């Protein structure tokens, strides 16, 4: 009861404080951020953006008007959120993942848009090329250099020839990776074996359908795969097929290794771009970026249960060894 009362008083005090401080902060900046859906990786991006802004002196609730909206998986709502942000005339809009970014791009040609976690912004037509766009759009892609990913697969399972991938054929980001792998793997003497999982409940059975056909699993940041990662891990340890992941978060959940990005760091990188725009730079003069911080995470326990031994050299080069 008293806690309730005091929190109410606190709210009142805050309302008063904002009411009084508002005129002083006429120069207050506003950032609006939207994501197509709630998801651990996407939420990490959002938090990264917010924390980076705070580090640069733009603190939400103090000198920054910060708002976050999730479309909760509905594209109609995503479109409305885009309209609302444009209507609010915010200083920068941050859009996480392709459908949200496209909805904002369709809604405004003048408010700066910074996208994040879009794997191929050129295919998504957000920007025309990897050069500075000259428009109101820039951002950070979560694309990985796949050659380095293939190198890691070779280091984990040196004699692997068949790489299995479970993916959602309905996810743009995921399809991009599968298509590139299909082209790249033969150059390294390997082949790709795919299994589709249109829903996250299909991930386990799709993985099982690959038993006997593949030597190693490679998992991209496919939303379905990431949300049902445990079912893949189970198949991996039952059938002794090691899992190599694209994001470090999956290593903690049972992948043998990942040379990947941390979505929180990706969010901070996105936040740094937002700060540059808030400080007066033009998004059209900034080429889009890809993740600049990659880290190798390994999980020896998972390696053991999935039937591979990790070399001392690999363990030494790892940025983080999980125990």
């Amino acid at each position, binding site marked *: 009861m008293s806690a309730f009362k005091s929190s109410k008083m606190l*709210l009142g005090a805050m309302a008063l404080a904002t009411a009084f401080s508002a005129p002083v902060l006429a120069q207050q900046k506003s950032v609006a951020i939207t994501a*197509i859906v*709630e998801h651990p990786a996407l939420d990490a991006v959002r938090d990264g953006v917010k924390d980076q802004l705070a580090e640069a002196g733009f603190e939400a609730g103090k000198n920054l008007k910060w*708002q*976050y*909206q*999730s479309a*909760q*998986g*509905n*594209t*109609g*709502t*995503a*479109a*409305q*959120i*885009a*309209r*609302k942000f*444009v*209507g*609010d*005339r915010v200083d920068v809009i941050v859009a996480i993942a*392709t*459908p949200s970014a*496209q*909805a904002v*791009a*369709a*809604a405004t040609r003048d408010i700066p848009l910074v996208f994040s976690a879009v794997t191929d912004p050129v*295919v*998504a*037509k*957000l920007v025309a090329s990897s050069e500075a766009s000259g428009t109101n759009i820039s951002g950070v892609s979560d694309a990985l250099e796949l050659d380095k990913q293939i190198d890691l697969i070779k280091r984990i399972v040196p004699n692997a020839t068949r790489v299995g991938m479970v993916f959602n*054929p*309905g*996810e*743009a980001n995921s*399809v991009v990776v599968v298509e590139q792998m299909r082209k790249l793997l033969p150059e390294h003497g390997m082949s790709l074996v795919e299994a589709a999982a*249109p829903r996250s409940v299909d991930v386990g059975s799709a993985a099982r359908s690959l038993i006997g056909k593949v030597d190693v699993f490679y998992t991209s940041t496919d939303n379905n795969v990431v949300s049902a990662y445990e079912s893949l891990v189970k198949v991996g340890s039952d059938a002794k097929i090691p899992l190599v992941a694209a994001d470090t978060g999956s290593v903690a959940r049972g992948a043998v290794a990942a040379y990947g990005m941390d979505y929180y760091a990706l969010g901070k990188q996105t936040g740094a771009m937002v700060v540059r725009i808030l400080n007066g730079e033009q998004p059209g003069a900034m080429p889009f970026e890809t993740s600049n911080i990659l880290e190798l995470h390994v999980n020896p326990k998972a390696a053991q249960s999935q039937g591979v031994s990790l070399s001392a050299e690999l363990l030494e080069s790892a940025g983080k060894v999980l125990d």
Partner: protein
Amino acid sequence: MSLYTLLGALEIGLIFSLVALGVYISFRLLRFPDLTVDGSFPLGGAVAAILISTGSDPFVATFAAMLAGAVAGLITGWLNVRLKIMDLLASILMMIALYSINLRVMGKPNVPLIMEPTVFNVLQPDGMADYVFRPLLLVLIVLLMKLLLDAFFATQTGLAIRATGSNARMARAQGVNTGLAVLAGMAVSNALVGLAGALFAQTQGGADISMGVGTIVIGLAAVIVGESLLPSRKLYLATIAVIVGAIVYRFFIALALNSDFIGLQAQDLNLVTALLVTVALVVPRLRQHWSGRKGG
């Protein structure tokens, strides 16, 4: 709430009012619980987006999207009428199948339309802002569709569809080919939904495979909100009610998006929308209740 937000809500509401009209035809007139909508909405978007992005005329693309929707509805009807598959299941089968078909149509999960010509930017007069012109054009399209529907349901075929929905046995006794009526109704219903998908893709930056999720829920909510706000047994009033319902539903979402001042957060959006719709459904009944008391 800014003017831009309001016009945005109006624009999306008008697009979804075409979905609502389609749902009204299947659920209310034909009494056919049709979930095909979740697949025919993105189908319309997919067909329009892929045609426009490969250089077709946006009007041709939009018309092709309508036809594609009609074919999807025809197949659902055919599964039910000819293969005797239960109506709900027939529409579920079609909805699932359309997911793969839509991926085939687009060739990838996402076809962007950001710089391409659309029916909106081709017709847009100079000096008029796009956020004003889009709802204006949509008002014309929706009104045109409404009038066409009103006229259609007064023809022999239209009346046969309505008779089939209200009492199939009686309709057959009167010599109506009820199978054909179901096929026609489903085709018209899903053509409207396909058109909505095509317009949506052209206003929102492209087609995405996930754009169909929950379409039927929004369509049904719009129909029911509309019916409770403007109850009527006359078809030309009922179609207006359905359109109003779809727009009101969007205004509720806009309101929910702007409810942060009372401490609500992003994750509460769907809950707030549900609460607002509940209020919209209950208030007319309460009003009736009170006015009934006064009268008695």
